[in-house]
């Protein structure tokens, strides 16, 4: 029985954080976020930056898979497009636009290019569903990576060997160190999450959910599948493009192989682990997906102390753990970590009157 949910005003009913435990949880998380660059060491900042970038991309994937119910296994392509668009824009417009404004223009540019690519890749989604779409997006991923590596485009993309990336510059504030860049990543990631959460309180977001639940029924209700499926792809690609732009600023050099199938699978794995179709699911999923290899690394370091033989079997074990996470969550907790935490928060809210 649902208890502890009494609302006396519409305002209270419409709130995203509708009880004090949720509010406390989110405020605590934000405080933790601010504490990272102030008190964390370089390693923690590095991991947190990676998580932030991943989080933005996973939120995008969540829009298309979790909310619209379109299977995609190729979202790394959009991250790649975002990253390369940023670098190419910097190289092309370097002299024309003053340095202090370049980043502010390059990020929207990368997002726009990615969204456009999303519309193009989303075109098959109008005709095919489910599996066919998964393979179509997978194919798009292979093709995009191939084109980046191709010799013809090497003058712009750097080809197989990759390309050096510029430093972000916000109105003269050079974000040279990772600690400085973290502020940009964190702010954008929180904004991205807020935007995603609120998207699903609007007409567009509800249309997405209707399409996920039954696309033909949605069409009969007057939702244009054509329009909303493409919009979903465009929005999710835009998120991935933003992640790609930050990716480019974060690393000193980008290589095409960083955006191959493995990244696509990581993005999908993160929402499976975290919880599909839930905003916070992306957060938990990213934390787990990024932390597990690191934990394995630390454990191995403690046991082996840098032995070469043990270090060789570390990579395969990290890979197996990654697969086991996907398989385990699908088998035992299909709604992901979000469900576990929801259950806990609900229990706290109703304590001591009801459990679960």
């Amino acid at each position, binding site marked *: 029985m649902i208890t502890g949910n009494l609302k006396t005003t519409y305002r209270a009913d419409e709130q995203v954080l509708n009880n004090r435990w949720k509010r406390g949880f989110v405020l605590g998380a934000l405080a933790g976020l601010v504490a990272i660059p102030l008190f964390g060491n370089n390693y923690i900042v590095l991991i947190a930056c990676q998580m932030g970038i991943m989080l933005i991309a996973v939120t995008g994937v969540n829009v298309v898979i979790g909310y619209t119910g379109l299977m995609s296994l190729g979202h790394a392509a959009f991250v790649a497009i975002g990253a390369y668009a940023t670098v190419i824009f910097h190289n092309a417009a370097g002299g024309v636009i003053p340095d202090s404004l370049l980043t502010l223009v390059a990020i929207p540019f990368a997002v726009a290019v990615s969204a456009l690519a999303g519309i193009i890749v989303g075109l098959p989604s109008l005709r095919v569903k489910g599996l066919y779409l998964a393979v179509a997006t997978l194919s798009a991923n292979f093709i995009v990576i191939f084109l980046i590596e191709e010799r013809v485009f090497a003058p712009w993309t750097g080809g197989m060997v990759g390309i050096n990336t510029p430093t972000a510059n916000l109105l003269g504030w050079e974000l040279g160190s990772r600690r400085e860049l973290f502020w940009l990543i964190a702010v954008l990631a929180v904004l991205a999450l807020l935007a995603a959460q609120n998207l699903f309180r609007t007409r567009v977001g509800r249309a997405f959910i209707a399409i996920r639940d039954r696309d033909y029924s949605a069409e009969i209700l007057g939702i244009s599948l054509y329009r909303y499926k493409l919009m979903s792809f465009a929005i999710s690609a835009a998120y991935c493009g933003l992640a790609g732009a930050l990716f480019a600023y974060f690393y000193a050099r980008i290589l095409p192989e960083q955006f191959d199938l493995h990244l696509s699978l990581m993005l999908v794995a993160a929402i499976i682990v975290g919880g599909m179709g839930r905003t916070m699911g992306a957060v938990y999923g990213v934390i787990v997906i990024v932390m597990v290899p690191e934990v394995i690394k630390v454990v191995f370091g403690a046991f082996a102390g840098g032995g070469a033989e043990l270090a060789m079997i570390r990579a395969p074990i990290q890979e197996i753990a990654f697969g086991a996470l996907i*398989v385990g969550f699908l088998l035992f907790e299909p709604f992901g970590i979000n469900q576990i935490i929801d259950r806990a928060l609900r229990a706290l809210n109703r304590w001591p009157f009801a459990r679960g």
Partner: protein
Amino acid sequence: MGQILQFTINGLMSGAIYALIAVGLVSVFKATRVVNFAHGYLIMFGAYFYFTFAVLVPQLPFAPDWLQSWRPEWMLAMREGLPMFSPMAAVLDWLANLPRILLGLAGALVCNALLGMLIERTLMRPLMGQSVFAMIMLTVGLISILSGAAQLIWTSDAEFVPALAPNTPIRFEMFGANIFLFGADLANMAIALLIFVGIVVMVHYTKSGVAIRATAEDQSTAYSMGISVPKVFSRAWVLASTTGAIAGAILATRNGISPALGLFGFSVLAIVLMGGLDSYLGVFIAAMAVGVLEALTQWKLGGEWAGIVPYVAVLIVILIRPHGLMGSKEIERI
């Protein structure tokens, strides 16, 4: 003209192997409605098992000598005085390797069948009756597990593996053009086609094949007609993993063994969707077409372009015919 013919024939030979791999994917899909994204990694396991039983096991200290290289008296006598690259010498070389080739194939078949059964029993069956999406994502997770496990088990560099048939060069003239082929490639093509036809015939005419088709048509009806659906599932997985083992052995002899074999599965997945998921004929046509297109692309544009041919082809076909060349359209009710 001569070159086109040569490359077309090369393409048909790789197309036959695509078809052999695709038959496993189609069979699993027909029976269980699941597309196995990790099929390429099953093939990789098949290749590694073949390598283990054909190369590593004969090198063990207690393995008999004839397993490593079989040289009876009459063979040595026949070898006397043969020139280096004569076809007869190639056949004799192959005969000397035959025991370990057979052991390798048998080992790969048995081990891969066990692996397929294990996957079906532990991972697929608990999800039976739930959404297909979960099962498909599970095979996506399997990709990482299998590729990590292969790296853990087979750390040594893969050496040369013996070809399945004598590797004599064959030259002949066709429509006034000189064609040059390798005997082993031709034999691989024959093996692949035979197995493909055999499975199609089996699915159409034998009792267990009919059970697979009935399950594909309607799972719950099949259940109530007395067909053991779980048994059908595990049969389909065994079928897929054994054909995968043979395909793996063939690929190991052609391109060597590497973790990249797993990626091969994705291009076959593209081919399967291009042909239409549940149509053996459509998939066969798609496999041959992609094989030839790849060979021609390799000839005209270079090797790296050949790699994306299946993906471009599947995108074009899906945009024009959303259910592939010959796939049946799904009827949805609200």
